[in-house]
């Protein structure tokens, strides 16, 4: 556990109120990327995969009532705060911070480089109100907003389900959202930025995956690795009709590899990739 008097921990602490209604807070606990397993066990790997720096946990207690727990993460960058928020998008929009969800006593939100979770150990009308109020107060105490990952700007807007866009780095998180393969055939790692987006319904829609490898050689190697494993019958062509009658296709655009899964037609697969590639390259060209 990191000392709560650490400068960064103090900064986190200052963003969270000491009381909420008649609930009083207990002693803070602070964890970094190495010690987070002392606090939240295996889930710590998710936060580590988004390069977390610190989390401050503050528990609010009132005798005879459910505890409320605030976990406020300093993710180091707004992109990773956004990313870890997109890991679980289940719930209603609570309109807190730069993005939020609420379901079953759990509020999640992000703002600037911070990701916040506020959880009532039992949801009642009273605890729901306090959870949301805590979230609003914490978000208000964060002075700035942060930017989303630049890859999002390359997503074609037509048909995009904007509420289900995920940002992440490694293949384990990719598989969590959309299983591709047990092995890391896209050569993802902590230095790659990836966006997964849904076009159409979750059961029959197409998925667009964009991965920025930082340089064209790495992107080329990843494209070759993916097409060799996923479409061995036509790796050079980069497009294949899969066993369920849908289409998968892959393309590079500078440092980015774009892959579409489950497209309804060859034309749709090509069009989505064309548009994403053009949008990405346009964003990179000199102004």
């Amino acid at each position, binding site marked *: 556990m990191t000392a709560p008097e650490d400068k960064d921990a103090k900064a986190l602490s200052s963003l969270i109120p000491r009381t909420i209604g008649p609930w009083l807070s207990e002693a803070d606990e602070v964890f970094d990327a190495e010690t987070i*397993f002392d606090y*939240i*066990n*295996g*889930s*710590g*790997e*998710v*936060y580590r995969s988004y390069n977390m720096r610190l*989390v401050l946990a503050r528990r609010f207690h009132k005798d005879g009532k459910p505890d409320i*727990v605030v*976990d406020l993460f300093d993710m180091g960058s707004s992109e990773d705060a956004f990313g870890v928020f997109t890991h*679980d998008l*289940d719930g209603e929009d609570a309109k807190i911070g730069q993005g939020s969800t609420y*379901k*079953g*006593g*759990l509020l*999640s939100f992000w703002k600037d480089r911070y990701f916040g*979770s506020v*959880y009532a*150990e*039992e*949801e009642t009308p009273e605890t729901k109100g306090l959870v949301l109020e805590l979230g609003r107060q914490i978000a208000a105490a964060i002075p700035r907003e942060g930017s989303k990952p630049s890859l999002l700007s390359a997503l074609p807007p037509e048909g995009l389900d904007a509420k289900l866009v995920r940002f992440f780095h490694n293949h*384990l998180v990719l*598989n*969590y959202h959309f*299983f*591709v*393969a*047990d*092995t890391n*055939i896209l050569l993802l790692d902590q230095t790659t930025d990836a966006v997964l987006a849904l076009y159409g319904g979750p059961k029959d829609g197409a998925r667009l995956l964009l991965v920025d490898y930082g340089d064209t050689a790495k992107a080329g190697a990843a494209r070759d690795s993916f097409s060799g*494993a*996923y479409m061995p019958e036509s790796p050079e062509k980069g497009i294949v*009709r*899969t*066993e*369920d*009658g849908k289409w998968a296709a892959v393309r590079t655009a500078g440092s980015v590899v774009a892959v579409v*899964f489950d497209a309804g037609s060859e034309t749709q697969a090509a069009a989505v990739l064309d548009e994403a590639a053009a949008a990405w390259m346009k964003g990179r060209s000199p102004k």
Partner: protein
Amino acid sequence: MRRSSITRRDFLKVASAAPLAGAFIPALKAGTPAAPDEKVRVVLVRDPSPLGPGGAPPAEVVQKMLDDAVCALLGEKDAVRAWKSIIRPEDVVGIKTNAWRYIPTTVEVEQAIKRRVMDAGVAEDNIAIDDRGVLRNPVFQRATALVNARPFRTHHWSGVGSLIKNYIMFVPSPPAYHGDTCADLATLWNLPMVKGKTRLNVLVMFTPLFHGVGPHHYSKEYTWEYKGLIVSRDPVAADVTGLRVLQAKRREHFGDDRPFQMTPHHVFLADTRHHLGVSDINKIELVKLGWPDGALI
């Protein structure tokens, strides 16, 4: 082109984790069942008594559930005789529990086990109950026998919090076993403090967690009162049986065969890669005792 419901994504999964297919979709399993004498016995015992504030039935009910299960498992009529067949008076016994805040093993289960270990003739000084402190616990350090007891739940990184995984506290750095979503947790069972010492596995199914949310991977909304214990000498067979229950509950709740958030492949790899136990449900003899309503399997 004939359309198939099995795509190359399924193949890329099944190719590296074939045992999963058999356990999760039994109808697709084409293999011949193993001969009866090769089967591993697993006992599921349930009781409809109300749960107390700690999430367990009353202590006397838990004792009876455990006794009935151990007798059925070991083919004995008397619980103390049954325990004496797996614990010797000279044993030093560590009861590896699980202290997770939201769903612990429960004191009732811990004490029911301890009582029968003492009935088997072990001195109280030679018995310890511990989770996170096992490496520093002097009884665990000299233990000759272990009883492994933990609640079953989904887990954000390993798929499920399993009996296999419960020995993670026998290493100083648990994250060292997190690679490939905890694929090789079974190697924990080769640690000197553990190897060959486990006499019984008790998977607590009073209020299992079948889906997780948030940093703590917990919401009461995704638990239910199953009120059961799964008991076996084989941790893999017990975990697979628990997985079948969770999978059935998820199917009932979500209305489809939703995959676990992370693959629980460590349970199957414990069999196919590490040979710790049996994961093939065709080679497991499931004995069901007690309350049948809502058993799901």
